[in-house]
């Protein structure tokens, strides 16, 4: 099999895994799910690192550098903001909290 076919196979299978894993997310968590997934899409940072590291002074290096910055903002910002949101989701009230 050519590399492309292997890639397509991986892609299709992963998409099905994605559908199976995500279908049952409760609406309450839709925003964190979206921003968490968004952070994962920043995985393109790997490609960016590879491109930026190709060689000094080239146009590819500049494009790669910009890609690294954009993807890292996506990854770091995405995971942090998701965590910030998830920290806020309180558990259902325990039998009367000590608040008066």
């Amino acid at each position: 099999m050519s590399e492309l076919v292997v890639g397509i196979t991986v892609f299709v299978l992963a998409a099905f895994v994605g559908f199976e894993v995500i279908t049952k997310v409760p609406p309450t968590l839709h925003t964190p799910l979206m921003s968490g997934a968004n952070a994962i899409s920043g995985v393109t940072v790997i490609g960016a690192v590879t491109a930026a590291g190709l060689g000094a002074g080239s146009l590819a290096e500049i494009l790669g550098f910009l890609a690294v910055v954009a993807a890292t903002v996506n990854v770091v910002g995405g995971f942090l903001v998701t965590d910030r949101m998830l920290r806020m989701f309180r558990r259902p009230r325990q039998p009367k909290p000590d608040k008066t």
Partner: protein
Amino acid sequence: MIEILYLVCAVAFIIGLRRLSGPRTARSGNLLAALGMLGAVVITFVDENILNWETVAAGLAVGAGLGAWGAVRVQMTAMPQMVAAFNGLGGIASALVAAAAVVEREIASVPIEVSVTILVSTVIGAVTFTGSFIAFGKLQGIVTGKPLVFPGQKFINGTLGAAAAGIGLWTLTTGHEGGYWVLSGIALLIGVLAVLPIGGADMPVVISLLNSFSGLAAASAGFVIGNNALIIGGALVGAAGLILTIIMTEAMNRSLANVLFAGFGSGDGGVGAATMSDRPVKRATAEDAAIALGYATSVMIVPGYGLAVAQAQHATRELATALEEKGATVHYAIHPVAGRMPGHMNVLLAEADVPYDQLLDLEQADPLLQQTDVVLILGANDVVNPSARDDPTSPIYGMPILNVDRAATVIVVKRSLAPGFAGIDNPLFYDPKTLMYFDDAKQALEDTLVALREM
């Protein structure tokens, strides 16, 4: 060996997403996905022949700093535009990876399947980038939230699409690099033109779809550099975004094509507005609202975008607590498309410390409305419009709504009688059981709370 390590990272993404689907496990799931990402970057650093690691490290540091700054500073009400901006950056990163491959390896010299993936990655990434930033502008109020429609728009978009396809084919067959850059420019333009005609209240669909696109862009960048971690991660996000897109369009009872191309809410639908706006409404003051709420044993709060605009989540929570202390049960009914992104209201109310078991979705809340004493509507409109149920001529007919008119009393807090985004008048406002309280949501809630305490 390296392949296996990347696979471990991809599995971390899958398990992370899986754990994101439950409130109790979600935080650890997010952390796991983040660790997978860190691992993937470290592996790349070790494995790839990084000639100038200073450049890469500088890029990582700048990006991490900016991302962390944004994530810490952003207000919860501004979360939709934040996600839109992050989406756009993910998209442009994928396009830039493809562009770097072009300048590095001469498009004529790479095998055809690689050049195809380069073009696909560039086009999807570029459309995601400009589309997301137009969405950002609309959500932030920089670009008008109204659908921007002009004559010949569809023709222009169609021509651009055809031109992109033609130039893409030409670039592939001739290997001419100039064609690649023209195609990139057209893709950027298409992203702008595609999102401009979409109205603010359709943003939950657009953001979900762009989310899906950012995943597809990452996956196609994975094809360009031949990396399975990118392909798997991108496919997962593509699927996640698509699922949310479908949930959102179903919650509006509209097709995706209708959301994207119809210029919905540009005014054509508001036929009934002129005829109905003269009808009398029952106006209410803070005292009226307090009396109605104070004697209720069951209250359902229906939040909408107006709640986010007014930053009224904390005031809502305070009023709800006061009502609970008086012995009432309080729930929140959250329509899937309330707000500007999926789950927008839930995040706001979670910020105000509302326990998530009080947040009911459409299916849970709707049957309870019949036994509800008072429904308090805060800046929501189309999602409680009975026309969607009763009036086959209404543009939103068939959209699942919260049937709030089945409750005993309805209090609508709204700035004015202006119709909602869809430009459709709401018969609920003229219903004899409805009290209209015209004010900013936060102000109204605070005044009602004062009045309630004085009772």
